């Protein structure tokens, strides 16, 4: 929202300079985003008088114009045809900077130039060149009374400072969306008096031009004021009015519309002016729109309405969207002579909803949606009548209609009082502020303070609907007092030891272990598109997605993580990434939110030699990596082959290739899955590279028992390590099963370590070669070869009987 410094000064003549003002407002009321000089863009553009117009000797269409700038006489080359000696025109001097605009993408700096052999020391400007309007017919001819040499900004009444207010922090202050409101604040802060001219309005008692006003729903329209005026001459507004509006970014339409806008910005009351002769039967009905009813608004767009919307209608048709925008069919026009001025109050929620639905945010909406004070209706209407009488000779020819709902009547009579305890206030703020000081602050803000013994009764002015409770008054006191004066106080309390929640601690540990293993962390959006969804009934979806790719909430981290991996593959030949994030799904009518961990490891495809070392396959390398990871966070992991049914039902296993996927099993629970990227999915196919994906349900993982770290004595006697090599059938091989069985054989077996698994093509019968090493160790003595041999024999027998594996003979 923009405020004019000059306008504020009209009410507060003793106001400080605009920059100081901006600083004070920022700290005490609302942030002033910037303070800038209006018309600064017209620097070095002055009013010049044309002395002589000659034809250019070298060009038919150009003229040489001799102008007086008040300081000197200059020759300017000009192409316009509408110039004559004696006219006053805007002259851009050397160094002036014309704004970007129609037909000109960038601004233009004016320099002395030689045009067809004649030197031109500046440029005469058309309206559009100055950004003042669309006209490019000729040079802008200024008023004959304009002072020669006067800066154009001064001539245009632009010598003002504009304060731009951040309005977000004023959501609760509809009373501040205007100049007077800010004047009240400044007066309270700086201890000034507002200069208000309270003229008695001359309103005729006759009701020559009566209206029939009917409010069908008083809840939606708690107050409706209107008056009929005639003898109106619609014409351009006087300069001062045009300039004021222009400076605040409002374009001037005609005197009547300009006056309504002026009052809006001065008093904060949105008004609407109808052409009274276009209102059928002099009837004004405030009613809900009929379903499908249409209205062409003042922005020349047609809106289709629903029963939710509130309209102002005559006996036949809607003539305005209540509290939002007027209708084209009843708008003020060149022929208007009789007008109806409406100054009403509409329900904030209703205005907001309609505005939202139609995508129509007007100055009126911004104010009504915040629940505008009811008192504003009469202030605004009075000011409008006063200005119309003064500027157009219009006369009031009806009575002053004022329809109030019962609720509005109560509010307008009620004197709202808040109980206030100065002692409690000091305790709440934590600062010793004297009673008298607090009282002054409240009084300066327009409140009446009745002091009791311990408690005060504070009466709130009508325009401060935001003040309702004790804490609201605290805010007023703190901001006027200045939060910078409050001495910070430490919080005292019991000193309690605190251990952060397991989820938090473990997540941190997980991430730290992962980065130690070379994984980098990525974040992705929680949304994805239909192509990632196979089980729609499990998915939650967004009602108002930003685009079609963000319609569903993820049930798995994998699709988006894959997308990230694919991007990186252009830059890194090999990498590891992970993400920890929330996933969402529904079952029946309940929704669940969990936290998952997912990762992707890329592998370069290796050329295979004749010995097919299966343990070097990416899938097994990943298993090893994850085993290290889980061991590090205190968990023992096992893997089990996952079938396609499982993949479908869990972890949206759709992303994994069914042929090589495994369940991650910990403490007899499946907590995750890993597998190769499902390459047959065309869009995710990558050349030459292989990705292994995994996803773990962290919510489930957190529920497991994490092994506490416990010291085991270091063995005193040497260990014996022996390698064994077996031939076995490939189709029947599960390392975890084998190692578990071997462990059971004898307590002397301390370790069973996998060495290699060769799927050798040289074995014609399709069998494979498995090597592993066994570590034998005793707590009591150094083992003898014979003792080891006995156990080793048992292992060999076990391998033969249980796994059909034969010791390899070299």
């Amino acid at each position, binding site marked *: 929202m923009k405020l004019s410094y000059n306008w504020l000064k009209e009410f507060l003549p003793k106001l400080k300079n605009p920059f100081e003002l901006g600083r004070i407002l*920022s*700290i005490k009321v609302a942030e002033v985003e910037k303070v800038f000089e209006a018309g600064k863009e017209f620097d070095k553009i002055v009013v010049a008088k044309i002395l002589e117009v000659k034809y250019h000797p070298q060009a038919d269409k150009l003229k040489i114009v001799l102008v007086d700038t008040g300081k000197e006489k200059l020759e300017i080359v000009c192409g316009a045809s509408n110039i004559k000696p004696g006219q006053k025109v805007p002259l851009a001097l050397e160094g002036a900077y014309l704004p970007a605009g129609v037909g000109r993408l960038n601004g233009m700096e004016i320099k002395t130039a030689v045009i067809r052999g004649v030197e031109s020391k500046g440029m005469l400007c058309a309206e559009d060149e100055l950004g003042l309007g669309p006209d490019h017919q000729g040079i802008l001819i200024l008023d004959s009374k304009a002072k020669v040499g006067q800066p154009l900004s001064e001539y245009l009444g632009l010598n003002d400072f504009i304060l731009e207010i951040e309005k977000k*922090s*004023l*959501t*609760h202050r509809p009373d501040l969306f205007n100049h007077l409101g800010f004047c009240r604040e400044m007066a309270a802060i700086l201890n000034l008096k507002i200069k208000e001219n309270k003229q008695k309005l001359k309103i005729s008692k006759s009701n020559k031009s009566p209206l029939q006003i009917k409010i069908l729903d008083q809840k939606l329209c708690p107050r409706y004021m209107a008056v009929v005026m005639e003898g109106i001459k619609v014409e351009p507004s006087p300069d001062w009015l045009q300039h004021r509006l222009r400076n605040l970014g409002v374009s001037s339409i005609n005197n009547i519309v300009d006056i309504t806008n002026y009052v809006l910005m001065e008093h904060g009351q949105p008004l609407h002016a109808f052409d009274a002769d276009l209102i059928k039967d002099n009837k004004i009905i405030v009613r809900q729109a009929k379903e499908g009813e249409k209205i062409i608004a003042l922005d020349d767009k047609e809106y289709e309405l629903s029963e939710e919307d509130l309209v102002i209608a005559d006996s036949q048709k809607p003539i305005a969207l209540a509290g939002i925008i007027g209708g084209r069919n009843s708008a003020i026009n060149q022929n208007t002579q009789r007008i109806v001025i409406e100054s009403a109050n509409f329900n*904030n929620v209703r205005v*907001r909803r309609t505005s939202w639905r139609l995508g129509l945010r007007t100055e009126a909406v911004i104010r009504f*949606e915040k629940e505008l004070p009811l008192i504003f209706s009469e202030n605004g209407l009075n000011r409008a009548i006063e200005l119309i009488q003064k500027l157009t000779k219009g006369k009031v020819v009806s009575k002053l209609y004022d329809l109030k709902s019962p609720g509005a009547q109560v509010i307008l009579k009620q004197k709202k009082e808040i109980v206030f305890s100065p002692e409690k206030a000091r*305790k*709440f*703020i*934590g*600062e010793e502020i004297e009673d008298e000081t607090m009282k002054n602050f409240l009084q300066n803000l327009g409140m009446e303070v009745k002091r009791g013994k311990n408690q005060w009764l504070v009466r709130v002015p009508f325009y401060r609907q935001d003040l309702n409770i004790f*804490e*609201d008054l*605290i*805010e007023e006191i*703190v*901001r006027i007092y200045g*939060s*910078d004066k*409050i001495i*910070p*106080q430490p*919080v005292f309390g019991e*000193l309690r030891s*605190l251990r*952060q*929640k397991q*989820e*938090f601690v473990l997540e941190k540990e997980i991430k730290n272990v992962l*980065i130690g*293993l*070379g*994984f*980098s*962390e*990525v974040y*992705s959006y*929680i949304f994805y598109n239909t192509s990632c969804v196979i089980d729609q009934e499990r998915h*939650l979806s*967004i*009602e*108002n*997605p*930003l685009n079609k790719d963000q319609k569903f*909430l993820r049930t798995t981290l994998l699709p988006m993580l894959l*997308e*990230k991996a694919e*991007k*990186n593959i252009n830059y*890194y030949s090999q990498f*590891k*990434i992970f993400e920890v994030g*929330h996933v*969402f799904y529904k079952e029946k*009518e309940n*929704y669940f*939110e969990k936290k998952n961990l997912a990762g992707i490891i890329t592998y370069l495809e290796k050329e295979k030699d004749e010995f097919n070392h299966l343990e070097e396959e990416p899938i097994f390398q990943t298993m090893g990596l994850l085993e290290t990871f889980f061991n590090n966070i205190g968990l023992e992991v096992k893997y089990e082959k996952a079938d396609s049914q499982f993949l479908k039902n869990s972890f949206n296993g759709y992303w994994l290739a069914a042929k090589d996927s495994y369940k991650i099993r910990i403490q007899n629970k499946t907590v995750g899955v890993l597998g190769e990227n499902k390459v047959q999915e065309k869009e995710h196919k990558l050349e030459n590279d292989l990705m292994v994906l995994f996803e773990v349900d962290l919510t489930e993982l957190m529920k497991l028992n994490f092994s506490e770290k416990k010291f085991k004595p270091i063995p005193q006697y040497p260990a014996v390590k022996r390698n064994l090599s077996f031939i076995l059938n490939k189709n029947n091989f599960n390392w975890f099963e084998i190692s578990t069985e071997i462990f059971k054989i004898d307590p002397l077996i301390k370790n069973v370590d996998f060495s290699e698994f060769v799927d050798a093509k040289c074995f014609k019968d399709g069998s494979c070669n498995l090597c592993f090493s066994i570590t034998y160790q005793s707590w009591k003595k150094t083992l003898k070869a014979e003792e080891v041999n006995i156990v080793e024999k048992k292992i060999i027998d076990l391998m033969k009987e249980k796994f059909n594996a034969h010791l390899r003979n070299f």
Partner: protein
Amino acid sequence: MIEKIRQLKDKAIQEIKQSKGPIEMEKIWRKYLGRQGGELTRILRGLKDLSINERPKIGSFANQTKKEIEDFLNEKKQNQGNFSEKNKENSNYLLPGKKIDYGHLHPLTQIRYEIADIFSSLGFEILEGPEVETDYYNFEALNIPAGHPARDMWDTFYLKSEERKNKNKWLLRTHTSTMQVRVMEKNKPPLKICVIGRCFRHEATDASHEHTLHQVEGFIVDKEITVANLIYVLKNFLNALFNREVKIRLRPSYFPFTEPSFEVDFACLNCQGKGCPVCKHTGWVEILGSGMIHPKVFQYAGYPKGKYTGFAFGMGLDRLAMMKYQIDDIRLFHSGDLRFINQF
């Protein structure tokens, strides 16, 4: 025979002289002295076929030769060893070491941890909370009823609601303040809570706008918590965050769930408050929103009227990370681009 042995010796010595490095010398050893197929070894093995007269003479000569070759080899080995040691000392090579892959935490995770550490040290409990929320905890319980214009402050993603019996509308939380009533309705003061997590705004993305954001929320509730306490804690937190004494200022603001409400700025660290492009020439940088918890919020939490006071504050982490690392495009955080992430 003796002649043959002598020739063998000369050849061997010659080869040893020309040899470079231990591998070649090993080969020479094998060629002449190797157990299997060494030329001299073969002669020694063949002694048994010689006449008894020849045997001692040739035998001792062969053995002597063997020793000579061995000695010569050892000598050369030793010299060479010394030479390479010496060479190392005088060498002037500088090669890169072999690097080991180490991963990188996302910069926002790093900021999250930093902030969690600070609040942990102040005795706050760290929580995260759900990202899908009900309208109740996101708005209503925070004193933002339906139709309230303040809802515009948070453009919201709503979830489709077709088959749900539950009347409560689901949405993606627009702020971490959702945890205020969630925590309070289950716990009695004193409370010191810090919520760090993701939230969402229905907003088109560009270099400075994101629909997926990260926030930290803190609140303290107890008997007699004051505005002066709020200022103290915020100042302490910011001092720790920036690792220096930071000047702050509070501006009045509006949040429906705090009263009074403040916007908090800190004096620009880049220009010490003098004004520069970082602070848009104001000398101040906006960093967080805060205020005293509104009595309505306590009412929703089920606390007895007037018994407790408290303050709350919230801060965006994305902008903080951008400021700290001088990142100019907010979209990089969710790009997953390792060229970005591996810089942190």
